[in-house]
Every structure is written in structure tokens, then in C-alpha cells.
């Protein structure tokens, strides 16, 4: 509660002036979050952090509201950091400067157990908690029962096996609690790698703390509180304006995760989206879905809420809305206790909560918005996680040392939007393309791995006025004298990413093993493949869905895709209705305007009669 005098002062200063001050402080806040990120990226030891950039750094207010997140992974950050800070407050009502908490409980705000969070309260000279800084980093290993951080087949948290920390105080007075450090070192594979990543993450939160303390001394803590209020109000206004560009409407959209062990029929997901343009509000109802399932796919509460919100922020097509607690005020996400896309009940496992089923919530939400509001929303983003995004492990014959790490050797999946083609390297809806793709040379140097092929696959884009990203092919295996395990949990082998507003589906994901004789054997969608030297695993990522009818695509863009080998002549003709003249070999290939028009008219007629 603010005192009246402060409100009066604000009035006297004139509300419009806050626009100036707010702009300045929000620049400061974003650069603090970026500083935290830079530190973590450049000093981390595992590939998943220092190559793939799978981590996030955020600032929250003292009442645990998300304030600044720089460029963090959406699925990591929208909702979850707030719940985790609340957990820290609940268990540690007294906090001091120098405290740091390790938290990864998916039952209390974390996304999944592999995302270790370090949370530091920013305490001023008078001992008052002013902010929280939080760094969340996906571990290369988190002590699961198998060498993977995605235990899709785990019936419960016991079979999953991760060490679960609930607001555990890992530092007091800036010194490590060695008890926790020893626990991690004993349980987590390749402990030196974990230790290096812990140091990097700690560096990030401590730098954030130092910078915020300096900012507080400079401008005063009350002014900062005032800023946060103003920034949230501004963000809420921007959100209202964005929502009011959409018409009101309601849509229920179905989606489904592929079958996998523990859920032989797959997991259907139903989302109901309601846009209230007059009031400037959007709600998503996820309650009419099945209970928690005996597998690792159950969403944590943080991921369930965030996944729905990602669909909304993607669908607004207005990146001027700051994603923080202020704009969140205009969103309502209804969840149910013990629901597979709701609030998980212990001991159901949430091992894979950030990716597979979360995307099956985000993508129908963005598609529902497209159905309600032409020119908004998006098609479905390609589901993950094919073998090229699996966790590899084994013993490196070059050094004799054990290795375990997640690789990012080729994942695409961007959905067509109302204004652009699918972003090729989006990875998945919750990631937004912020993670990187591995360099072949870096992977071959770091791991006993050989990548024989990596290329885009023609005709796998979700066709549309704005098409989805195509699938990518990757083939890799162990080097001589090495046996390698690749564990992955692929969705999208049965249910592709669907298009929106008459757009087509993206290509399916696939997995094969190339045997010693060169033949291909199909592999299950959720699997741990053991590869001997000379054997390879083949991965097809899922393509993204298209937005709008392909016969409305600018013929020049179709021509460009054809010339670039992203689509074949057959598909250009039968799906996009493109007729060309000439050929690249003998003269310029060009659009035959009138023949294309005629072809498209007949395709439209066929579509109508079908």
C-alpha cells in the first residue's frame, strides 16, 4: 500500500511526466537483465547453456511480480518466476543480503525439474527486500534415473528421479551451503559440468543484485517502486489497445499430443479462447481436459499458464506490449487441479513440461485467435523433440571420460503468421527461436559424434498465404570405438502442426536408425536409441503450419520457394496453383500470370466442392 502523500506527489508531478522517467528506468532494468544473461552465456560449461542458450534471467518486484525479462525464453518466464518467489517468501519470511535459493520444484512454480533456478532477494541497507532476481538454467543433467533431462516415459516423479529442491538456501552471507553442493555433486552426472554451470548462474544473479542495489541508491527505492507501478499500468494500457484491435469472439480448438508409453492413445487437448474486445480482455479455459497422466508430460502450473499466454502474445502481432505483470492483468487462464494441462498433483511427473504438451496448449490458442480474428493469430508451430534435439550420453573414447548433453542439431517449426512466413529456427512455440542451433564442427569436436548430413526437406512446409517453416533432416552417429545413447521424446509423428485459416499442415517429425548395411529402420517416437560405431540416427523435425490459403500466396514468393528448392514443381502447381514459363537452365523461370490465375480459380472451385 502506498501512502497518500506519495500519490499526491505523483499527481503534482503530472502523470505524463512519468513517461520520461519510466522510459529511462525501463532501459536500465532491461540492461540489467541482459547483463545477467551475458555473464551466464559466456561462462557456462554445458552445451545446452553455452551453445544452445537454454536459460533465462529476470527481475521481479518485492511482491513477486514479473518486471523485466530482457530476451528470455517465453516458456521459462511469463508465469513461474512469480510463483517461485512466492514459495521462497513462504518458507523464508526473513531474508538477508547474501541469501540465495535453489529451486526447481515443478509443484511450486518451476517449469520442470531440469530447470535449476537461483533466486536472490535484493535487500537494501535497511534490510528491506526490494526486488528479486532469478536465473533459470536448463541443466545438462539433473540426476534423473536415465541420462536425459526429459523423462517422457516416467510414470511419476520417483521414476523420473530428479533431485527436487524447494526454496533450498544454497547461499547465506554469499557463501555456499556445502551440504547442497555435495548432494548435487553426488547425484548429477558429470559433476564438474554441473559445478561450472552453477558458478555461471550464480555469477548472473549476483551481478543482477549488485546492479539493482546501485540503481536503488541512485534513484531511491520509493521512486523505483513508483516506476514499477507506472510501468505495469503502461503495459496494461498497451495490452488493452492490442486486444481492442481484435473483434470479440469465442472459439474452441482441439489439439493432441501423439501416443507414447504410458499414454497409448495420446493426450487430447481442448482450449477455449474468449476475446472480449470491448473490455480488452482475453481468457483461455483449459479445465475441460483429462487428469494428470502416468508419464512425464504433465504440465507444471507455471508451464500451463505460460503456454496459454504464449499463444496470446504470439497471436496479438504487436510486440510493443511489454510481457510483464501489468499486461498479464488482461489475461485470465482457467486451470484445474490434477489436470494434465493444469495444476499437477504430486507425484505425477512434469519432466517434459516445457516443450511437448506445452506446445499443444500454445499452438491451438494462437490458431483459435486466427479463427476469431482474421489478420491475427498464427498457425500451429511444429511440435518437438526429434532425435536431433535429444540428449546424448556415453563415454568419449578420445578421453575416456563420460559425457551427457542435449544437442540442437536441427529443429525448425516456425508457424505461418498473418504477415510473415514461419521463422525457420523457431525450435518450438515456447522457445520463440531464442535457443541456438549447434555448429557441426563444435559438436564433432566436443563429443564423439559424426554428423553426416543436415539439410532442409522439400515440400514439408505447411502451405499457406504465409507458409510454415520446412522440416529439417539430420543424420548423426558415434565415432569409432564409441557407443552412444540418444534419448528423445518426439511429438508430431502422428499429429502435425495444423494450418490456420485454410493453411496446410507442416511435415511430420520422424526417427530412423541407419543400420550397418545402410538400410533404415523406423524408431519409436519416444525412445532411447543405442548406437554402435557405424550406426546412425536420422531425425526429421516437424514443419510449421501455414496461415491462409496457399492459392492466395504471392506467386513471386511461390516462385522463389521453387527456385530455392524448398518446394517441388509438382507442389508449386497442385498446392499453390503456380504456373511458370521458362526454366532456370535455359532462361529465366518466371510466373505465368494468367495461367496461374486460372489454375488458382480451379483449385478454389475444387476446394469449395470438397
Amino acid at each position, binding site marked *: 500500500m502506498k501512502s497518500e502523500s506519495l500519490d499526491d506527489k505523483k499527481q503534482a508531478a503530472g502523470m505524463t511526466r512519468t513517461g520520461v522517467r519510466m522510459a529511462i528506468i525501463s532501459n536500465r532494468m532491461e540492461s540489467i537483465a541482459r547483463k545477467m544473461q551475458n555473464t551466464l552465456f559466456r561462462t557456462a560449461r554445458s552445451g545446452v547453456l553455452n551453445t544452445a542458450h537454454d536459460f533465462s534471467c529476470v527481475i521481479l518486484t518485492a511482491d513477486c511480480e514479473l518486471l523485466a525479462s530482457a530476451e528470455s525464453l517465453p516458456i521459462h518466464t511469463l508465469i513461474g518466476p512469480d510463483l517461485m518467489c512466492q514459495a521462497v517468501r513462504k518458507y523464508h519470511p526473513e531474508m538477508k543480503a547474501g541469501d540465495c535459493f535453489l529451486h526447481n520444484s515443478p509443484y511450486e512454480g518451476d517449469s520442470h525439474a531440469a530447470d535449476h533456478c537461483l533466486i536472490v532477494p535484493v535487500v537494501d541497507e535497511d534490510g528491506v527486500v526490494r526486488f528479486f532476481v532469478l536465473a533459470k538454467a536448463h541443466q545438462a543433467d539433473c540426476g534423473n534415473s536415465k541420462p536425459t533431462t526429459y523423462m517422457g516415459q516416467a510414470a511419476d516423479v520417483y521414476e523420473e528421479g530428479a533431485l527436487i529442491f524447494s526454496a533450498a538456501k544454497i547461499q547465506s552471507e554469499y557463501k555456499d551451503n556445502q551440504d547442497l553442493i555435495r548432494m548435487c555433486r553426488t547425484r548429477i552426472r558429470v559433476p564438474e559440468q554441473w559445478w561450472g554451470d552453477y558458478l555461471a548462474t550464480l555469477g548472473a544473479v549476483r*551481478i543482477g543484485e549488485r546492479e539493482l542495489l546501485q540503481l536503488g541508491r541512485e534513484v531511491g527505492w520509493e521512486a523505483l517502486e513508483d516506476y514499477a507501478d507506472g510501468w505495469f499500468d503502461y503495459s496494461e494500457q498497451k495490452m488493452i489497445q492490442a486486444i481492442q484491435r481484435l473483434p470479440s469472439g469465442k472459439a474452441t480448438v482441439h489439439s493432441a499430443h501423439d501416443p507414447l508409453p504410458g499414454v497409448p492413445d495420446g493426450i487430447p487437448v481442448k482450449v477455449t479462447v474468449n476475446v472480449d474486445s470491448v473490455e480488452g480482455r482475453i481468457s483461455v479455459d483449459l479445465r475441460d481436459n483429462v487428469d494428470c497422466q502416468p508419464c512425464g508430460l504433465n504440465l507444471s502450473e507455471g508451464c500451463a499458464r505460460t503456454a496459454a499466454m504464449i499463444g496470446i502474445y504470439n497471436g496479438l502481432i504487436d510486440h510493443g506490449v511489454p510481457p510483464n505483470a501489468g499486461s498479464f492483468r488482461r489475461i485470465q487462464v482457467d486451470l484445474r487441479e490434477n489436470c494434465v494441462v493444469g495444476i499437477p498433483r504430486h507425484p505425477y511427473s512434469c519432466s517434459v513440461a516445457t516443450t511437448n504438451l506445452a506446445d499443444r496448449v500454445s499452438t491451438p490458442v494462437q490458431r483459435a485467435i486466427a479463427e476469431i480474428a482474421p489478420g491475427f493469430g498464427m498457425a500451429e508451430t511444429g511440435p518437438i523433440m526429434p532425435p536431433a534435439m535429444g540428449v546424448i550420453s556415453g563415454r568419449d573414447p578420445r578421453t575416456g571420460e563420460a559425457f551427457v548433453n542435449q544437442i540442437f542439431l536441427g529443429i525448425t517449426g516456425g508457424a505461418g503468421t498473418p504477415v510473415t512466413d514461419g521463422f525457420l529456427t523457431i525450435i518450438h512455440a515456447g522457445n520463440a527461436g531464442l535457443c541456438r542451433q549447434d555448429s557441426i564442427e563444435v559438436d564433432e569436436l566436443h563429443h564423439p559424434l559424426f554428423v553426416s548430413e543436415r539439410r532442409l526437406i522439400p515440400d514439408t512446409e505447411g502451405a499457406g498465404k504465409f507458409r510454415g517453416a520446412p522440416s529439417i533432416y539430420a543424420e548423426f552417429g558415434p565415432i569409432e570405438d564409441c557407443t552412444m545413447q540418444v534419448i528423445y521424446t518426439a511429438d508430431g509423428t502422428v499429429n502435425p502442426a495444423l494450418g490456420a485459416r485454410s493453411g496446410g499442415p507442416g511435415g511430420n517429425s520422424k526417427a530412423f536408425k541407419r543400420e550397418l548395411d545402410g538400410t533404415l529402420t523406423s524408431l519409436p517416437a519416444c525412445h532411447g536409441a543405442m548406437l554402435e560405431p557405424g550406426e546412425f540416427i536420422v531425425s526429421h523435425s516437424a514443419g510449421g503450419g501455414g496461415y491462409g490459403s496457399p492459392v492466395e500466396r504471392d506467386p513471386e514468393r511461390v516462385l522463389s520457394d521453387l527456385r*530455392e528448392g524448398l518446394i517441388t514443381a509438382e507442389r508449386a502447381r497442385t498446392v499453390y496453383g503456380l504456373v511458370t514459363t521458362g526454366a532456370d537452365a535455359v532462361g529465366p523461370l518466371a510466373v505465368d500470370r494468367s495461367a496461374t490465375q486460372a489454375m488458382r480459380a480451379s483449385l478454389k472451385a475444387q476446394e469449395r466442392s470438397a
Partner: protein
Amino acid sequence: MRLACDTGGTFTDLVVEDGNEIRLFKASTTPDDPVRGVLNALALAAEHYGEEQRSFLGKAEMFIHGTTRAINAILTGNTARTAFLTTEGHPDVLVIREGGRIEPFNFTVPYPEPYVPRRLTFEVPERIEANGTVRKPLDEAAVIAIAEKLKALKVEAVGVCLLWSIVNGEHEKRVGDLLAKHLPGVPVTLSHELNPTLREYRRASATVIDASLKPLMFQYLDSLTNRLREAGFTGRTLMVTSGGGIMDAEAVARAPIHSINSGPAMAPVAGRYYSDRDFDGLAAIVADTGGTTYDVSLVRDGRIPWTRETWIGQRFRGHMTGFPSVDVKSIGAGGGSIAWVDDGGLLRVGPQSAGSTPGPVSYGKGGAEPTVTDCSLILGYIDPDFFLGGTMVLDRAAAATALKTKVADKLGLSVEEAAAAVFTLATEKMVGAIDEITVNQGIDPATAVLIGGGGAAGLNAVAVGRRLGCAGVLIPEAGSVLSAAGALMSDVSSDYAQMLFTTSRRFAFDEVNGVLAGLEERCRVFAQGPGAGALKVTVEFSVEARYAHQIWEIEVPMASGRLDSPADLEALKQAFHDTHQSIFEINDPGSDIEFVTWRAKVQCQLREGGTGQLPIQKADGAALERRDIYFSRTGWVDAEVVRFESMPSGAPVAGPAIIESSFTTVVVDPDTNAVRTQGGGLRITFQ
């Protein structure tokens, strides 16, 4: 006499160094024929010295040139039709890149197009493994068939980047030979020769960018050298490079990627000299303010930091040059940045810029959006009648009207309050850019001096320095032409690298010494060729290393070019731990260290002691000037206006004050002191 000339987007800067004196000249850049702008600047200089251009140029032994020619060709898509040859199975190296994206919820920006389209990409049947072993031999017949296709497609340049060519370059070399034979006359760039660095995307990117620049840069440099010769110049023509050194123009024509970042790369070279001369060699934050960009770089312990992640355009949206380059961070903030209020009532500055055309409102060239330059006019910082020494009269009233309607009224502020707010926000953006680079390099701004370069630097350099808590601010006497001044201080230099992976636990002494000997030999050849006649030749060795499991190497200087004993290795390990601590605040002495790339840099020094001084002019006896200037802290104040050219060294000027020269204006805030140093720069400290 030596000449240094930097062709920027708006102005062509010339510095003439005659013995121990320098003189500065500025002409407009002529984008249709940039050599004309160079000749115009030379004509201004000849006139100043009262000589015919021919006899003036005849006295110059060296012409050092920086240009935005290459970068502009890339940005406007006017490069050669280039093909990309890659290892079989990996055609999409330039398409997939290294992933990454900015602005998670911004779907209005499409995925970037590859630098070379897929239809001009060709897979070469061959494969080398990480340890250099040939897994699949090169199929020469297939290469010849590709050459025939390239001919039919009328390809004008070829970039070849095969996997692991940095460990074993035989296949790339052979492809180069076959192309020379079967595709004669078409320039080719081989990745292991140009940029032997790990990570195939950035190496391939550098390779195709370099190839695509070859035809046009050859033509440009040919035209430049010919026209200089026709005008009477008989000396040596050198080009400044992205690496902060200078190279013969012919060498740059053979590897034109060196010239991509040539302008900004010179600023830290100049900054290092000025910090040494005027601020006891403190770490220097060098900020170069242009019309549209603000370039920041750092110098610490006399070393200029390098980066391998230079982007053309925005990070992840443009193309990575992948080429070692002086680490310069550019943000879209400058005198031309536009001030506006968004629909949520928030003040914004940039990223849109009015550029040099139409330019700020006050230029009267059709600009309608208020810019930072317009605000500095409103606040009294710039004298509308004395801009660029009076060569251009500015319209203050028009600036004020535009700012009132577009910004001040919307925020409920007075015009000067709004202008001051714009300045504060622009300052904050610059501070943010500096913060990011200081974190990356681990420098505490409190122990550093901020060096302001560029014509507009002085307007808020003091404010930026104060906000960062710097030890002081320095505006060098040649600050307005910082890059050209830096070019005069540069050495003729070259940089060689070779990859050899080894670790501290199993250190391969013999192989490492073999690599170092090879690098040293290449330096020696360079010193006897392009470096012949230098006053001094230095060869510095360094290694890029990291802790086991880390991925981003840091560069560690080596004490000598050989590692003969375990004690030498211990010293190198300690140097690594120390460097890591100094950059990241942490180290891990128990961890194994991985050594990846070995480097040698040869520098051939041409001149003793930086560059000459700008002579101090006698005061012309005109009455002391004063004018009202505005700060948000104080409101309007009456301030002294001092002519920089006639400021004697040692005499302090207390803020609030304005110090003006023909090329720049320095705002001295209240509670700060400015003094001209013995060397000639303006040293500003906070009370």
C-alpha cells in the same frame, strides 16, 4: 607528409600530418562517386597550404584510406553474383546459420535470407573429420562439373568452405586449383586461407562475403589509386582494416572483407593513444558518435579487444562476418535519431533516424521529425550560426515547433523540458550500450576514461561519463575525425592463426611448437615484404583457450613464441586463470584448460609516438561570448562560450560552459571542469 582520409556516410574526413603538426579538413561525401569526395577534401587541404594540388600531393609519402564502400555494397545488395561450395550433405550452412533470434514476440520480421541463395549453393563430394583424417576423398570430376555449371550460371565470384578445412586444408586447396583451371578469371575465396576459425557458419559467411566483394573492391581501389596518381600522388596507398591495422591497397583488393568495418575500427586505435597521452593510460571507453550510429569500443592495458561476432546489420537478423575484428558495438543512436511519443504515452528516441537526408528539422532539407540534433539546438548547446564553423545555418524555430507538436505537447512538458528529456533518454541508451560491452570485457567504468569522438560527441559526452561514473571524459583535439586520426597511428600489420586442439593435462608440446614456428615464419615473411623499412617490428603470440566444457574461448597473450618446458606451460595456465578472473570475476583453478587456436600478430611500426599535434591558434581578441543553455537540473543558465582553437593548455574552464570549434561543440555540465592538456586534448573531470 602523410594523409589519412576516412569516407563516412555524411562527411569525408581528412587529416594532414606534416612533421609534428596535424590539420583537419572535412568535405561532403559524394555517394555516386566517393573518390570525388576524397579529391575534394584534398583540394581543401591544398588550398589551406596555399599550394597546387599536384605539388601538395607530391609531398605526401603515404595515403591511408578508410571507406564504407564495402559495407554499403552489402547493405544495398550490390555485390557480385556469388556461388557457395560446401561439403556434401551440408548445403544449408548459410540457411540454418547458428540459430538465435531477438524480440520473442515480434513476428513482423521475417527469417533472414541466406547470403548466397540455395540455387547458387553446390555440394562437393568429400569429407574430412575433426582430427583431419580424410573420411571421403575429394571427387575431382564432380568439382569440374560444378565449375561448368557455375560458368553457365554466369557466376562472378566463388566462396569455398568445407567442413574441417581448418584442420586439413588439402581439399579446399585442390578445389581452388580446379576452379582456377576450369573457371579462369572468376575470383575465389578459400575459407581456411581467409579465416581459419572453428564453426562452419561464421567461416562460410566470411568466405562468401569476401568473395562477393572482390570484383567491386578491386575496381574501386584501382580507380582510387589511378586517380590519386593522376592528381600527383606518388606514394604508397594503404587501407585501414576491421582489425585496426593498415594494409596495402592491393592486399585489401585480394581480401576485401578486411575493409568492412574499417572506419569504426580506427577509433580505439586513436583512443588508446589519447588515453595514454592525456589520462595516464587509464582504460578507455571510446565512443564515436555519428549521424545515425553510436559506436563503442574499449581499450585496456593498451590492448584493443577483438571479437569474432561482428554482424552486418542487427544481431541474428543480418549476416555475421565471422571475421576477427576490433570489438565495436554499434547502436542506432546519434544526432539524427528521431524523438517521438508512442501510443502509450512513452517517450522514445530512435531507432528511426533522419540520417543526413532529409536530416534534422533544423537543417531545412525537408526533415519533419524532431531529432537529437534539433534538441541540442533548442537547449542552446549548438550555435545555429556557427555549425561546422558557420558553413551551414540552422533553423532553431523550426526545430522547436516540431518538437512542441510531436513530443512536448503530448507529454505536457515545455519545449526545453522535452528537449532535455530527449537528451537524457539518448544518454541512457548510450550508457546501456557501453554497459553491455564493459560487462562483456569486464571493465569497471569508474576506473576508465570516456573518449568522445565524432562531431556530435561533445554534446552529451560529459553527461554519459557522469552517468557511468567514469574517472573523466576526454575530447581529443582531433576527436571530430577520430577514425582518420587513428589511421595515422596504425601499424602495417597482419594476423595469422592456426587451430590445434590440446589440453593442459595432455599438452602436445611438439605439435604446438611446430604450429608456433609456422606462424612466426609467416610473420617474418610479412615483415620483409609489406613491412619492409619499418622502425620497429613486433610479433605477439596468443592462444584462444577455455576451461574444459566451456565453449567460448578467451584470448590469452603468451610471453613468447615457444613453450619449451613444463614451467612455460604453468605460466600459460596461470595467465589463463588470471585473464578469466579479470573478465568474468570468477576462475576455476582446478579445471583442465583447452587450447584451441594459436595466433601471431606482426606489427610494423611506421612512425614514432602516435601522431602530430594541432597547433594552438592565438586568441583573436574578440569579446568573451556568453549564451543561455538549459539543463534539466538547473533550468536555463548563463554560460561562458570558449573557442577551442585558441584555448591555452592548463587554463581551466568551469561548467556550465560551452567549448566550440569549427568541427565540434562540447557541453561542459555544471559541477565539472575542463582543461586543455599539454598534448592538446580537452580533459574533463567531475567535482
